[in-house]
């Protein structure tokens, strides 16, 4: 059935709107992956050169005439009542344009770093002088920053209204008779684990630059959701309906940059009060102290198995460090991926005076994975079983099993210690694995509009922002692929709330939400241009086909055709515009990805130092739109995960309640020497790495679904578990409290020595 669409045509030099008939072809499809010219290949991001040369403009690069600088005064106390706040001295400093008291007399502060007041001043230096001139009277209160101490019924209350201690949101979830299952077990493992609290460490800190023009607000935001920021400004006190949010480039969010946030709210209010644009970006110390953390969890885990490795039962209790807000609920089903026959999970949220929490790249999953995967490996050792065999015995998803087998082959799983810790010498090597599960499907959100001009140039616009994953490449790529053109022929302008509804880049949903809409916009353009070409060629639209090179010709007669430019020249003065909607192509995406990580480490058992020798990440994400970016996501996940496994450790001081390392010197991220050596690119058939080869391998396997899914978050999940288990495989004892810093590795070895 042909369908009718409205378009503008030029007839005898006059433009008129007509309804045209276009053939109703088969539903949109990505096509046979083998025949794709651009998608699925390794295409470098077009903004790469801009980023390395500094041409790319981030929110922190925006400088406007008369702009002021915003700054918070943050609470030095972990818990206190504010009994007085005097901003007058700050207001009198020349160059200070606005001061706002955030916490009022009688207010409470609940963590070190909580914003108490803010200022806008003509220079950052004056702003700093101004916050120091604000006089706040605090009455310090008892606090608790340690999640285990906070559980105690005698612990200081983080929130006065809490009844019966700091433990909240108890929950229980169980299936089957757990006690009976443990009684009948051949092997039981029982241990307490801790996955640490982590900071997001976005390289571009939180913040925005805002400018009022009458009642119009323009915001340059470092955000993963331009439309979310727009909505926040529309709804907040002192906000406006007339908001434009621009995010051309941004330096990382990892789940902590969805809304306007306190920086945005106060930037907007300060800008109004100061009657000047305000740039409000946190400095590094403020960023580390700000109200965002990936919550840590302490878990008591019991697992039971039959002699053949059948996982009989799990009994898990978790205490999630919610800071001053609330925590996630990792392991709240009592397992991660590998499901026991019966199970029980009890969970508690625990409040501490340590600031709020936020999603952090696969919220809850790395924590659940590292704890459960370590417990599984300890159980495997008790059963004298290969940990991979144990997992296979209890899980039969074929995609997952094939990923495990691939990862095992590439890393050389057969070289692992059969008995953990069996290697001789002071430098012991071990291999471990971890697994991931994630959704990664999309939803109707951002649209894409393609504008073809009379000169043949193409501009695609979408409100989706590039969180750093390389969205521009596939905006260009999908359109160029569909239209028979090249990447260079399409311009992509994104990250602007004026470009229609936006998409919140969380949950690895961006690609699966935006790619189908982009695809549909390109399909619409093809249909319209085919009709235009048909009129130019004096044939029916169904007789015209579009060939590589952007040439429209009569089917079966390539000689009778028009070039891309010739067809576009037939367009009306305004060219043509077409918008794609996710609903029309939701079948192009799917949810549900697996993924696994294998790691080999060397542990210096005399110093406790762990060196990562190899990491192999295997990840599916459905149809790969850009192999280079997909592999980059896996590599990035591995690098971040190495830091989590070995270094990242927020230090909260029990004496003062302060964070002792709100910086990058002592909050240690994975650096170039920690990152496992060189980056190795592999194509099928994937080769096994040499025993002494070092490097990181990111393998993105083509999932047969042929549909698009997300990859950013699953890529990080199994890394910490793989490294933790590799350490266990090397030294024969687990570093139960993460990260595996040398002091903890030595402590574990010492305990093992004492037991032996």
């Amino acid at each position, binding site marked *: 059935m042909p369908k009718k669409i409205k378009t503008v045509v030029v007839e005898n030099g006059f433009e008129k709107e007509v309804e045209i008939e276009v053939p109703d072809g088969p539903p949109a499809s990505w096509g046979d992956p083998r025949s794709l010219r651009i998608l699925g290949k390794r295409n470098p991001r077009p903004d790469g050169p801009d980023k390395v040369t500094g041409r790319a403009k981030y929110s922190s690069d925006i400088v406007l005439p008369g702009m002021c600088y915003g700054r918070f005064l943050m609470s030095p106390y972990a818990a206190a009542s504010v009994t007085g706040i005097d901003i007058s001295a700050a207001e009198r400093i020349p160059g200070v344009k606005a001061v706002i008291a955030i916490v009022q007399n009688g207010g409470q502060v609940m963590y070190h770093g909580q914003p108490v007041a803010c200022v806008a001043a003509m220079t950052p230096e004056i702003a700093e*002088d101004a916050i120091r001139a604000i006089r706040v009277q605090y009455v310090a209160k008892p606090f608790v920053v340690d999640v285990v101490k906070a559980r105690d019924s005698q612990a200081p209350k983080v929130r006065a209204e809490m009844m019966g201690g700091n433990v909240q949101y108890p929950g229980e979830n169980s299936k089957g008779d757990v006690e009976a299952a443990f009684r009948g077990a051949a092997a039981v493992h029982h241990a307490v684990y801790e996955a640490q609290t982590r900071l997001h460490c976005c390289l571009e800190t939180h913040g925005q630059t805002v400018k009022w023009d009458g009642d119009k607000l323009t915001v340059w935001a470092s955000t993963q959701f331009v439309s979310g920021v727009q909505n926040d400004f529309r709804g907040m006190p002192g906000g406006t309906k007339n908001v434009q949010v621009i995010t051309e480039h941004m330096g990382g969010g990892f789940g902590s940059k969805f809304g306007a946030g306190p920086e945005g709210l106060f930037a907007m209010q300060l800008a109004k009060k100061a009657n000047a644009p305000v740039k409000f970006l946190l400095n590094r110390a403020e960023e580390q102290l700000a109200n965002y953390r990936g919550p840590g969890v302490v878990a008591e885990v019991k697992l039971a198995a039959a002699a053949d490795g059948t996982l009989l039962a799990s009994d898990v209790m978790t205490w999630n460090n919610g800071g001053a807000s609330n925590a996630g609920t990792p392991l709240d089903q009592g397992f991660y991926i590998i499901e026991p026959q019966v199970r029980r999970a009890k969970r508690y949220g625990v409040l501490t005076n340590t600031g709020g929490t936020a999603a952090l790249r696969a919220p809850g999953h790395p924590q659940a994975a590292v704890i459960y995967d370590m417990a599984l490996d300890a159980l495997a050792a008790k059963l004298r079983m290969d940990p991979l065999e144990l997992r296979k015995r209890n899980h039969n998803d074929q995609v997952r099993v094939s990923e495990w087998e691939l990862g095992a082959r590439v890393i050389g799983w057969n070289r692992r210690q059969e008995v953990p810790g069996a290697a001789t010498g002071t430098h012991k090597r071990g291999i471990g694995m971890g697994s991931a599960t994630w959704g990664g499907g999309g939803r109707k959100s951002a649209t894409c509009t393609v504008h073809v001009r009379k000169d043949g140039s193409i501009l695609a616009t979408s409100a989706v922002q590039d969180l750093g994953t390389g969205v521009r490449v596939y905006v260009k790529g999908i359109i160029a692929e569909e239209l028979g053109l090249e990447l260079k022929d399409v311009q992509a302008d994104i990250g602007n709330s004026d470009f229609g509804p936006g998409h919140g880049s969380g949950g690895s949903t961006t690609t699966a939400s935006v790619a189908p809409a982009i695809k549909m916009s390109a399909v619409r353009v093809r249909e319209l241009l085919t009709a235009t070409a048909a009129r130019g060629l004096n044939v029916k639209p169904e007789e015209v086909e579009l060939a590589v090179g952007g040439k429209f010709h009569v089917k079966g007669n390539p000689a009778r055709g028009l070039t891309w430019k010739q067809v576009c020249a037939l367009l009306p003065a305004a060219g043509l515009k077409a918008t794609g909607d996710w609903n029309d192509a939701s079948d192009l995406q799917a949810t549900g990805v697996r993924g696994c990580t294998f790691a080999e480490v060397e542990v210096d058992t005399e110093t406790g130092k762990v060196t990562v020798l190899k990491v192999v990440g295997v990840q599916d994400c459905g149809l790969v739109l850009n192999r280079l970016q997909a592999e980059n996501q896996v590599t990035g996940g591995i690098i971040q995960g190495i830091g989590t496994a070995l*270094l990242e450790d927020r230090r909260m001081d029990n004496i003062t309640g302060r964070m002792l390392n709100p910086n990058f010197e002592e909050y240690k991220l994975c*650096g170039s020497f920690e990152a496992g050596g060189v980056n190795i690119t592999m194509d099928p058939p994937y080769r096994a790495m040499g025993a002494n080869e070092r490097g990181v391998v990111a393998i993105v396997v083509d999932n047969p679904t042929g549909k698009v899914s997300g990859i950013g978050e699953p890529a990080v999940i199994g890394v910490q578990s793989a490294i933790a288990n590799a350490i266990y495989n090397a030294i024969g004892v687990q570093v139960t409290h993460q990260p595996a810093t040398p002091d903890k590795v030595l402590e574990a070895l010492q305990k093992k020595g004492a037991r032996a």
Partner: protein
Amino acid sequence: MKAFQFIDARDLRSASAALGRDAARTRLLAGGVDLLSELKERIIEPETLVNLKTVPGLNALRLDAKGLTLGTLVTLDQIEFHQGIWKSYTALAEAAQSVGSPQIRNVGTLGGNLCQRPRCWYYRDESINCIKKGGSKCFAAEEEADNKFNAILGGGPSYIVHPSDCATALVALGAMVKYQDARGGMQTVPAEEFFLLPTENPARENVLRHGEILTEVMVPALAGARSTYVKFKEKDSFDWAVSAVAVRAVAAPDGTVRDIRIVLGGVAPRPWRCPRAEGMLKGKRLSAALLNEAAEAALEGSKPLSKNAYKVPLTRVLVRRAVNQAVTGKQMA
């Protein structure tokens, strides 16, 4: 940071005069890597910075038969890329190379490295008034403290560790430190005596009083000597020493230890010499047992705090490895 005046010093005398006597009001600036952190984090709030880099002649580097002379403004990067220093004063080259990151070594000076302030996070937190900043107590010493990087030797009343890598190496190399004293005279002291324990003055880490300026470091040549600096970091890409050992040794062709100096870094408020361990090794050939005994002796008297006991066995291992390396020229298997 607080706004300050900036004075380019013409010569040492004018630098000293500009510094005056009041440490609260003025500071000396070399590469600025550490000083700027202290200013930004408001650990110090001077009114005036005196720039030493405009004083001519302080960046000379001379290597001859008598030894190595380094002006205070020689950068760590110059040391790191000097073949002659690698050959004859390996420990110093290794120490310089182990500092921070290339950018830091590019601007960081030797004098600034030796005079940098401690990294203890209680000291580095503006809001915590610890004993080093005139407060009454060392927070790191408390049972509840987070003291995993603090001192296990020589602590009290402050439990900082000296952060400088070059300091540890230079003490092992028997270096001399030259400085202009408050009256304008030149003084020379062994590097070992340049650094102080907190019992002498918890607010300072070396003999310099305010207004005194380190000008030069001299390392004597020692025939047949071999040296090494073994540093243990949590994070290899850049980190201060969790623990480090510098050793300079002279060994006879048959392996007998003729002379040896062993100095520990990252474990005490100043570079920590180990005379008893040195004595045990002199006149003997290395064996596994002897190395163990020497390592035990090097750490004798150590008193770990609540969370840093791991540094004792860790440092013993580094002593064994460093001594073996310096005496035999080979890494331990």
